[in-house]
């Protein structure tokens, strides 16, 4: 007998995404007879920030919006057997699991069966030593904030097959959040590369939330999207052979069509024949997209090849301080005044700190840090601009000179500068490498509820 198609919805595309997209996704999954709810919450640096929170408080270090994501839908997910799979465990999956147990208690629900995936964290001293050797880096291990391998779908799949209601992970590759439940549902072999490639690309279409359903697509007057204030999060329907379609939650704004799907299909892809995850080398060279209904597309022609031999690792480490400060100039010779202010600051502290200077409103994010594009001049009229000075230094006191210099423009001029804002924050840098699979001891356990 062929297994029923599986529906997988994704209700966040990063940590900090809207949290009110979850209810329409769950409504839709229930109407379709069930499925899996995923949340993707870990960008490249999110895990390092979570490690810093965990150091401050051992009960923290998971997704700060966890209550808002899970709380409103936990009852209905348990009632309708909708599994929840997410990397919202971040640096502390155990603490996230305990938090969900607590949510269930407060709401008077049955105790869910929560699995926690482990093995991604590589911050044990001997692990760090091996990683640094692999990276060829001589940074002081004490500066390392986080080190995580990207795990795949296998542990998620095993936990679900064992009856978990919820699977909490730290770092796993984003598409594995979808592939895990797909593997568990259809029982595909872990070396069925074609099907794994399909399940992975279904996950890829979902992993950025509304990026596939019109959100990041919209340009008013050129490629408009209706209902930007209530864009629907995406859901994929996957069949036993790996064929899949993507649509969005019912009664929401947004748009899913050829164009939105193409933008997401290629998002953060390098070689289309070789999209690497821990699970498979997915291949979209011959992918095609067809609109099969309003706000629904089918993706065909995806395949996969043998998975990479090694796992990717990200290492985040402390690297000094970033200080940023801004001041506005408007009206007559605004751009000239802002540029003079920037030149003045460069003369005063440019020899102490690496600085970047932007004239927001005239030229900012298109420019390079070295200022090569700015040096070519920019002639567009700009009479309401904001000078931004950014500088980094290993010593906090030195980095802070950026904000002090911008603040002093209030009296020292040029004329008419106002609205100073500044901030200083620790700076994290990332190193990446790959490691042999046997370096990582990946697994999963059912979290023991701890009642305090």
């Amino acid at each position, binding site marked *: 007998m062929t297994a029923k198609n599986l529906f997988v919805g994704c209700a966040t595309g990063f940590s900090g995404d809207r949290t009110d997209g979850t209810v329409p996704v769950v409504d839709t999954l229930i109407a379709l007879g069930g499925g899996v709810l995923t949340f993707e919450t870990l960008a490249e640096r999110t895990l390092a920030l979570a490690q810093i929170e965990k150091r401050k408080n051992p009960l923290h270090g998971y997704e700060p919006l966890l209550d808002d994501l899970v709380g409103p839908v936990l009852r209905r997910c348990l009632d309708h057997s909708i599994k929840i799979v997410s990397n919202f465990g971040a640096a502390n999956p155990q603490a996230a699991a305990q938090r969900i147990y607590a949510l269930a208690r407060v709401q008077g629900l049955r105790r869910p069966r929560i699995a926690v995936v482990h093995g991604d964290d590589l911050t044990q001293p001997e692990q760090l030593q091996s990683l640094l050797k692999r990276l060829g880096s001589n940074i002081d291990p004490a500066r390392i904030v986080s080190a995580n391998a990207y795990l795949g779908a296998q542990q998620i799949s095993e936990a679900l097959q064992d009856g978990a209601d919820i699977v909490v992970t730290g770092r796993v590759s984003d598409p594995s959040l979808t592939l895990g439940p797909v593997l568990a549902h259809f029982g595909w072999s872990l070396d069925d590369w074609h099907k794994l490639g399909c399940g992975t690309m279904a996950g890829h279409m979902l992993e950025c939330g509304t990026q596939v359903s019109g959100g990041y697509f919209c340009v008013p007057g050129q490629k408009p999207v209706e209902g930007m204030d209530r864009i629907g999060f995406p859901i994929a329907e996957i069949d036993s052979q790996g064929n899949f379609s993507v649509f969005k939650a019912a009664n929401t704004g947004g748009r899913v069509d050829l164009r939105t799907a193409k933008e997401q299909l290629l998002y*953060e892809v390098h070689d289309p024949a070789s999209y690497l995850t821990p699970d498979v080398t997915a291949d979209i060279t011959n992918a095609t997209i067809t609109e099969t209904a309003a706000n629904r597309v089918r993706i065909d022609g995806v395949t996969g090849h043998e998975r990479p031999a090694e796992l990717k690792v990200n290492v*985040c480490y402390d690297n000094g301080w970033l200080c940023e400060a801004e001041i506005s100039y408007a009206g007559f010779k605004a751009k000239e005044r802002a540029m003079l202010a920037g030149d003045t600051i460069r003369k005063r502290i440019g020899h102490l700190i690496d600085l970047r200077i932007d004239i927001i409103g005239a030229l900012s994010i298109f420019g390079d840090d070295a200022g090569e594009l700015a040096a*070519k001049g920019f002639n567009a009229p700009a009479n309401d601009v904001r000078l931004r000075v950014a500088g980094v230094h290993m010593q906090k006191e030195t980095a802070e000179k950026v904000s002090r210099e911008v603040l002093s423009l209030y009296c020292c001029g040029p004329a008419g500068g106002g609205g100073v804002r500044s901030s200083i924050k620790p700076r994290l840098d990332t190193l990446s490498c790959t490691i042999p699979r046997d370096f990582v001891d990946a697994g999963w356990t059912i979290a023991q509820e701890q009642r305090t």
Partner: protein
Amino acid sequence: MIRTTIDLPLHQLAHCRAGDKGNTSNISVIAWDTECFQLLLEQLTETSVATWFGHRHPTRVTRYVLPRIESMNFVLEGILDGGVNDALNLDTHGKGLSFWLLEMPIAAPLQLADRLSNQIY
């Protein structure tokens, strides 16, 4: 000489999205239709795109073509001043770089330019 082509900004011929991994940006270029795609195949090359991003000093630019979805994917290595954690740019991800590429001029036949002006997709 009678002028037969006109320079159009890329956004009249295609839409784009940028993504980042480390110090590498990838920018997809998705043609609005088949005629646009043919022009882009000729003019939007690794060399022309590398030149357009000259101030970002790409160490390598690779173009991947996906004819079945009339799209290309440009991978520009080394253009993010170190990337999301390292760059001093406000936009450390380079999210906005798709809109830099969308300003690149493409020589289009006058007739095509007429058809493409003010299109809503």
